[in-house]
């Protein structure tokens, strides 16, 4: 039985910095023309360049660089005019050149930030600083069984050379929730930008977490040695690993008293099965990557005009959309958050419905309560949803004009989905039509005439007795609006 350690906030402060590797949505690899498509048979998407053949030379993929700049701008990172490529030297079977092409001291962007918040208020809104974002090429995948005496290793280089943008945050997060909120917001932003599909299962978004804890002991600030956690394959894993690791470090500190600087940075792997972090073998790890500028590639120059052009073309980011939905469509913060978090297509859907129906509030309610619930039940996206924005707006119009009673609108919505039809058609099928006042008064009068005991009860002060009449009214005329029936009956009894 594994017990989940509880974070004892009084004892220590958790400090987290995140390194996120994002696979960019390019057709081809960073330094060759091979496809980046996921799932092809092993080693079918390779060439002399990405397999590190002698004499093969890299040529930069401009599109990958453009997508990186776009991301950098969205994260308010500064983009210097000059950036270069460096070789990070290390031996590993999935790195066929023996070095990774990355960026060391002059990354393509640095010093930006991302705002995070929690609608439930788990932590106050805050700004997470981003140290840098740089481009590098991915390694291949190796599968090996290094059991003693046995050496069966297989390597797939399809992924080798895929463009990765590494986004490194400052250690600004103070809890597992903040770490998760940062990742969620970052992923949302990247999908809005269309620079990555952020699919963690396919490895297009990978996270390493740097964790330590800070404590106040006898008025002195103490920090534990920093640990880098790898193998984090979901946001949930990140959350759990951070909580686990903070507690582990706390216990270790109590045991050994080792502080930051007493031990080198350690790398640990998250074991999702066992729900704990384990020290990784450092024998094959090289701490000295012998970085130096890659002589095969020219430095990249980015003009101010190029940056300005990209800035001008920048889409509205999630944070901007949230405030826009609040000001333009009268949504509250929570509703705006829910809608924006569904992604750009969903927001577009909402805006179209709100614009066409003229009611942001109603559009927001319907979309959150009915549309979103349906999408979740069916596990589909808004792109596969059968009711167009115009059709939903038309339904909302009918409600607003009184032609469709709110009490029947849910049935109409269900019928629209069921029959893939419009609101007026659905209403016809369901036999829904607006009941005018005089018809309702006649209906109510006949009900009162038939039920003198109820009339007497109401007159005796038991107003709730009128409820029994509403059911009868619905039976006689399904289009009768219950609250109208109640109101009219009470008025008629009052006048008796």
């Amino acid at each position, binding site marked *: 039985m594994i017990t989940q350690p509880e974070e004892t906030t009084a004892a220590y402060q958790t400090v987290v910095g995140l390194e996120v590797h994002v696979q960019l949505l390019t057709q081809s690899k960073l330094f060759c023309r091979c496809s980046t498509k996921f799932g092809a048979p092993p080693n079918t998407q390779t060439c002399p360049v990405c397999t*590190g053949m002698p004499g093969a030379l890299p040529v930069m993929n401009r599109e990958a660089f453009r997508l990186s700049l776009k991301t950098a701008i969205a994260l308010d990172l500064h983009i210097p005019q000059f950036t270069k490529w460096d070789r990070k030297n290390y031996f590993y079977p999935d790195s066929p050149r023996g070095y990774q092409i990355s960026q060391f001291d002059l990354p393509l962007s640095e010093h930006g930030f991302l705002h995070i918040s929690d609608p439930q208020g788990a932590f106050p809104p805050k700004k997470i600083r981003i140290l840098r974002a740089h481009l590098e090429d991915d390694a291949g995948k190796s599968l090996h069984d*290094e059991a003693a*005496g046995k050496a069966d290793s297989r390597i797939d280089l399809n992924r080798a050379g895929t463009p990765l943008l590494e986004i490194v945050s400052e250690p600004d997060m103070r809890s597992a929730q903040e770490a998760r909120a940062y990742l969620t917001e970052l992923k949302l932003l990247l999908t809005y930008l269309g620079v990555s599909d952020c699919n963690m299962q396919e490895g297009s978004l990978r996270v390493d977490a740097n964790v330590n804890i800070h404590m106040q002991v006898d008025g002195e600030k103490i920090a534990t040695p920093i640990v880098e956690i790898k193998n984090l394959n979901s946001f949930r894993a990140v959350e759990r690993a951070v909580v686990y690791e903070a507690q582990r470090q706390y216990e270790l500190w109590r045991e050994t008293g080792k502080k930051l600087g007493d031990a080198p940075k350690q790398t640990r792997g998250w074991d999702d099965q066992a729900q704990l972090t384990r020290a990784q073998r450092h024998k094959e790890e090289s701490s000295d990557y012998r970085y*130096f500028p890659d002589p095969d590639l020219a430095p990249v120059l980015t003009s101010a005009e190029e940056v300005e052009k990209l800035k001008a073309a920048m889409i509205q980011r999630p944070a901007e959309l949230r405030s826009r939905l609040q000001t333009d469509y009268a949504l509250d913060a929570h509703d705006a958050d829910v809608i924006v978090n569904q992604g750009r297509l969903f927001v577009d859907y909402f805006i179209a419905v709100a614009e066409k129906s003229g009611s942001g509030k109603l559009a927001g309610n319907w979309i959150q309560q009915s549309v979103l619930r349906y999408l979740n039940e069916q596990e589909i996206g808004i792109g596969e949803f059968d009711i167009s924005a115009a059709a939903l707006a038309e339904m909302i119009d009918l409600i607003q004009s009184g032609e469709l009673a709110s009490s029947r609108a849910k049935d109409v919505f269900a019928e629209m989905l069921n029959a893939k039809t419009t609101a007026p058609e659905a209403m016809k099928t369901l036999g829904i039509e607006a009941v005018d006042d005089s018809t309702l008064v006649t209906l109510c009068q006949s009900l009162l005439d038939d039920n003198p005991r109820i009339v007497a009860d109401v007159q005796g002060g038991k107003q709730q007795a009128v409820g029994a009449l509403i059911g009868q009214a619905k039976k006689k005329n399904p289009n009768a609006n219950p609250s109208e029936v109640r109101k009219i009956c009470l008025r008629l009894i009052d006048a008796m």
Partner: protein
Amino acid sequence: MSSLVEQTATELQRRLQASEVSAVEVASAFLDRIASHDDKIGAFLSVWREQALERAADVDRRRAAGKPVGLLAGLPVAVKDVFCTRGELTTCASKMLEHFRPPYDATVVEKIEAADGIILGKTNMDEFAMGGSTENSAYRPTHNPWDNERVPGGSSGGAAAAVAAQMAPLSVGTDTGGSIRQPAAFCGVVGLKPTYGRVSRRGLVAFASSLDQAGPLARTAADAALLLEVIAGHDPRDSTSADAPVARYSQTVSQPLEKLRIGIVREHLGAGLHAEIAAAVEEAIQVWKDLGAQIQEISLPHNEYAIATYYIIAPCEASSNLARYDGVHYGYRTDETKMLAQLAAERKAAEGNPARLEEIDTPLVRMYRQSRSEGFGAEVKRRVMLGAYALSAGYYDAYYLKALKVRRLIRQDFDQAFAKVDVIMGPTTPTPAYRLGEKAADPLASYLGDTYTVSANLAGICSLSTPCGFTQSGLPIGLQLQAPALEEDRLLRAAHMYQTATDWRLRRP
């Protein structure tokens, strides 16, 4: 009429065009020469006899049918074994790549074949182009055709010896610190190192990427011009390739240069220079004066640091470039059965001793170690270690970064010099060809042989060596000419002018 193998490429080209001789006859003549002479010389690592004859026959057929043929149509070319040739052995004279057949052709090879040049085979070299004598070949040394007891120079020793011994009229070599010019000087042929980026490096197995450059070796400047015209030019698949127009060198080479201003570096004619070479250079200065050139003394103040700078930058890049030879994906891998047995024995011996067990390599690490130890020769290992050391944390600033700064100063020296003169002239090498084994035990002495050549690589300019005399004992002497970046045309025309005024190039071993 002299035999085919004695003729220059330009002369052969004329005769082929006039149908006085067929491409098959030319190819056969050189292949026969290789068959009869290369045992003694060792210039070739592989000979493509059948393909060469087939290609030659194809050229003959197309020419006879009146179809267009390329600039090199029917001309044999030897290619240094550092260029990738699709499906054909490309060893870099290393045990590491003993059985390696690349899946693609180097751009240089593609261009030669597209111009209908007939590749005769691959030439010997110092392993991974590291060395100046071709003694570092893992397979066999190459012997200097002028004196078989002596080295042909290196690393393009096979390329130079093949031309000198009349086994090929043209060959392609590579020059990282003098590897075309120095063997050209030792073997009495013309060798041109083009401007960095002038010839594509794609498919040239990298030694030091910021210095490597491919170039022609030939008997005359006109022949070198012909081959350079074919292999030069922008290659979008090489990010460091120069996007600059290529002159019709073979057409312009015979045009004399008016009022040529030639710079002489006085320090280069002083201490450390072999007396007979100094005399030959002085004689060349007189030839130029007679040709109407203006001779001027210039200074390259940082040149004295060129060797030190070079032997930091080149090994640093090499240590990274050669990391790919790790026994995993291709190339030499240690005998795994033996290796695993050895590891098992080591583990058994350390049983019960956790500290010692911890020290034993994993199979992967042992495979890397052993494959590289066994696959690379001594000079390659020496340079990989030098480079890895200079790049490591704590040393980077003092070595690599400092070297980059000096490199910039060396380049500035040339910029200033070329503001005053058109061409810089001096000796190619401090000594003539030395004896096999003479410097094998003293790598530093062999590194100093690059004294006059490395600065051109560091500065990225173009430079050429042309024969300018012989020692008393009959060893060739090379004259180095240097010109600003992308001025190969000037360099070739100057060399041609000099050659028409002298007859050193006509001597045969």
